[in-house]
C-alpha cells in the first residue's frame, strides 16, 4: 500500500528525459502529486531558515521569502516542532498564528498552506511547503503522499549534496536555489557603516524591511547598490534608532 504510493512517486521523479534528478523537478512533483497550487523546499538549521532550494512559482517563492524574512510560518513551525503543520484556511484560521506572515501570504493568493518537516531519521534538513489558492484541508491521500514526498525529497537532497566537494554546496543544489547571499553582503556593509557586528547589522536590516513593509532581499539589494545607508550620512528612515 505505502509501497505502491512510494513507487508511483519515485517513478514520476525518475521518468522524465533521463536527465539527473534536479531540485526543480522535485518541487514540481511535490506540487503535482498532492494536487497543490505550488510547492517549495526550504533548508533550515538551528531553527533558522537558511534559504530556499526550489519553488514552483511566484507565490511559493513569496511564501519562502516571507518565512526567511519574518522567521515564522508553516515551514519554520514544521521544522521546529518536527511535525506537519496544517493551515487549511489561512484567510480565517481557527487559531490565530503567524501574525506577520499571514497578511502578505493571503494577499499573494495563498488560501491553504501546509508545512512538512524534511528528515532522514534523526537528521533534520528543513521543510517542504505546499500551498493552494483555495481553502480546504488535505485529504488522507494527499497527506499520505506528502509524507512520502518529504521522505523522498530529504533523501534526494542528501544524495545531491553527497556528491559535492567538501566545504562546498553541491552545484545541483545551487541551481534554482536562493540562499539570500545579497542579504549577507548587505549585513557586512551595514556592519561596516555602523561599526557593529554582522549579527546586529542583520537585525537592523530586518527591522528596516519590516518597518517599511518591504522584502528583506529588496532592502539588501538597495544597500549593496548603495542606494541606502544606515549610518549618519544617510537620509534613510531607519525605524530602529
Amino acid at each position, binding site marked *: 500500500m*505505502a*509501497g*505502491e504510493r*512510494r*513507487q508511483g512517486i*519515485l*517513478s514520476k521523479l*525518475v521518468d522524465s528525459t533521463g536527465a539527473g534528478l534536479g531540485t526543480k523537478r522535485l518541487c514540481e512533483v511535490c506540487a503535482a502529486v498532492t494536487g497543490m497550487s505550488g510547492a517549495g523546499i526550504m*533548508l533550515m*538549521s538551528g531553527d533558522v531558515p*537558511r*534559504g530556499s532550494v526550489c519553488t514552483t512559482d511566484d507565490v511559493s517563492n513569496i511564501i519562502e521569502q516571507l518565512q526567511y524574512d519574518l522567521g515564522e510560518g508553516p515551514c519554520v513551525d514544521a521544522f521546529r516542532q518536527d511535525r506537519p503543520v496544517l493551515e487549511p484556511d489561512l484567510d480565517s484560521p481557527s487559531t490565530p498564528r503567524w501574525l506577520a506572515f499571514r497578511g502578505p501570504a493571503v494577499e499573494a493568493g495563498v488560501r491553504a498552506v501546509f508545512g512538512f518537516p524534511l528528515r*532522514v*531519521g*534523526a*537528521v*533534520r*534538513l528543513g521543510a517542504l511547503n505546499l500551498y493552494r489558492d483555495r481553502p480546504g484541508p488535505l485529504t488522507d491521500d494527499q497527506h499520505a503522499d506528502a*509524507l*512520502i514526498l518529504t*521522505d*523522498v525529497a530529504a*533523501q534526494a*537532497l*542528501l*544524495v545531491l*549534496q*553527497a556528491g*559535492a566537494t*567538501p*566545504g*562546498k*554546496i553541491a552545484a545541483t*543544489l545551487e541551481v534554482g536555489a536562493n*540562499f539570500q*547571499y545579497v542579504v*549577507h*553582503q*548587505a*549585513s*557586512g*556593509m*551595514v*556592519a*561596516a*557603516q555602523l561599526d557593529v*557586528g*554582522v549579527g546586529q547589522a542583520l537585525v537592523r536590516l530586518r527591522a528596516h524591511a519590516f518597518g517599511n513593509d518591504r522584502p528583506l532581499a529588496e532592502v539588501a539589494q538597495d544597500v*549593496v547598490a548603495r542606494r541606502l545607508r544606515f549610518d549618519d550620512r544617510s537620509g534613510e528612515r531607519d525605524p530602529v534608532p
Partner: protein
Amino acid sequence: MGGLRSTLHGTDLEWAAAKSLLGLGTATWAEVNGAPMPREATLARTFVELADSLVADFDVVELLTRLADRCVDVLDVAAAGIMLVAPEGDLRVIASSSEAMRVLELFELQAQEGPCVDCYRTGQPAVNQDLATVNGRWPLFAAEALGAGFRSVHALPMRLRGTIIGALNLFRIDQGEMTPADVDAAQALADVATIGILQHRGAAEAQVVNEQLNHALNSRVVIEQAKGMVAERESLDMEQAFARLRKHARSHNLRLVDVARDIIAGTMPASALDALAPAKHT
C-alpha cells in the same frame, strides 16, 4: 520510514532509491540478499519487529543481539552469534545470544578456524557440520565446541554485492539436521542483519552529509558578509571585494573562509588585505 525499511516490503524502485542512498551501485536485491523472503508466520513477525527497530538512531549492536536471540527462538538452535569482518580482514564477534564465556570463546576461536572462516572464504553456507566428524579440519575449534556440549555448527554468509561482510553462526546441541527450510530462514535472518548494518551506515552518512551542507552554507555566509564589509570599507563593488579577499588568501596561503572570518571578527582590518592593482589603502 527510511528507504531500507521499505525494502523489507520490497519494490524495485524503493530498492533503487535505497541503493543510491547507500552507494550500492548496481547491486540487485537478489545479489545483496541471496535468498527469497520467508513466508512463515513466526519469521514474518520477527521481520516486522526488526524492521520497526530499523529507525535511524537505533543501536546496531542491540539490534544484532536481538536478532541472535530470535535465531535461538525461531531456528531451534542453542546459541547464535553474528560475526563481522573487521577492516583488518579477520572475523570479530559483534553480537551473541549467550553471554556465557564458553560460548563467546567459541565465537572468538573462529577468527582462525571454523565454519565462519570457511563461510567467509568460500561465500557459501557451511551448514550441518557434525563436530564429531570434522576434527581434522578444525582441530582446535571442534574440540572446544564438543567440550562445550555442542553437536553441530552452521554458518550463513552475510552478503553484500558479492562481498561477504560477516556470518551468522549457529550452534546446536541435538543431533538432528537443519532442514532446507531452516537454512532458508537462517539465511533470511542473516540478510536482515546485513540490512541492519547497512541502515546504520546510511544513517551515519546522512548525519555527515547534512553537517557538510550546513558547514558549506555557513562558510558561504561568512564569505558574503566579509565581501560586504570589505566593499563598504574600501569602496569596492562585490566582485572587487571578493577578488581582494581571494588574492589575500592565496598569497598568504590561507583558506578564504578563514580570511573572511578575521575580517568579520575585526581581527584583521579590511585595509590590511593585499590590494590588487594600485593600492587604495593608506
